[in-house]
């Protein structure tokens, strides 16, 4: 089976709706098929990977730590649209420190988050074989 480029598009904030959690679950299932997987975070989707999520007070599971496991499944291309962050008064510092280990470079730790402009993200989206929207 040939490898295809899969893109998961995340546009919803976590907790208010179930989209963010559902997307993450599909990403983890899809990771077993050894495809070329990317995620992107557009609009309110950027809130999914915000630092310091503490859900004790709302009685829901905090699923944000799961994003840290994606690197172990070779899911290490997380595109974040710069314009979406800026509109929300956020910077890269407000996002979780998501990394992966490159086994070709003696397991060097590398950042998974790629901050891109709208124009850059448009090109990445254009290159995909399969786009899954959440």
């Amino acid at each position: 089976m040939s490898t295809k480029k899969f893109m998961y598009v995340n546009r919803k904030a976590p907790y208010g709706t179930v989209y963010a959690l559902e997307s993450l679950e599909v990403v983890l299932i899809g990771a077993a098929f050894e495809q070329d997987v990317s995620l992107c975070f557009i609009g309110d989707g950027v809130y999914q990977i915000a630092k310091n999520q503490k859900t004790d007070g709302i009685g829901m599971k905090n699923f944000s730590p799961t994003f840290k496991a994606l690197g172990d499944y070779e899911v290490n291309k997380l595109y974040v649209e710069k314009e979406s962050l800026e509109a929300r008064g956020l910077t890269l510092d407000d996002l979780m420190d998501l990394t992966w280990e490159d086994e070709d470079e003696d397991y060097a730790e590398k950042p998974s988050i790629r901050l891109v402009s709208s124009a850059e993200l448009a090109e990445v989206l254009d290159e995909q074989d399969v786009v899954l929207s959440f």
Partner: protein
Amino acid sequence: MSTLHTVNKSPFERDSLSSCIRLATKGSAILLIEDGVFGAMAGTDHSDMVKGAMANASVYVLGPDLAARGMSEDRVIDGIQVVDYSGFVDLTKQHNTCQSWL
């Protein structure tokens, strides 16, 4: 007569907050809950609209919903009061009616 308005949608995704602000009368209260809490943050594209509303209405935000989303109370717009669940109950008691902007 005064009304407590609750807004549970992100201002970036829906017009719930802008409609609420446009239609809330003087002396009413606006409580931001669930994804509505993003409207309470300083430095966003919607901060000025919310600051404008504060001349007319008291604005509150639910602390547990901020914390769940990793939004720091330190970065809430000055003058917006952070309340907990019992504060939410108090607000409902202090107002005659409650309108939910879903």
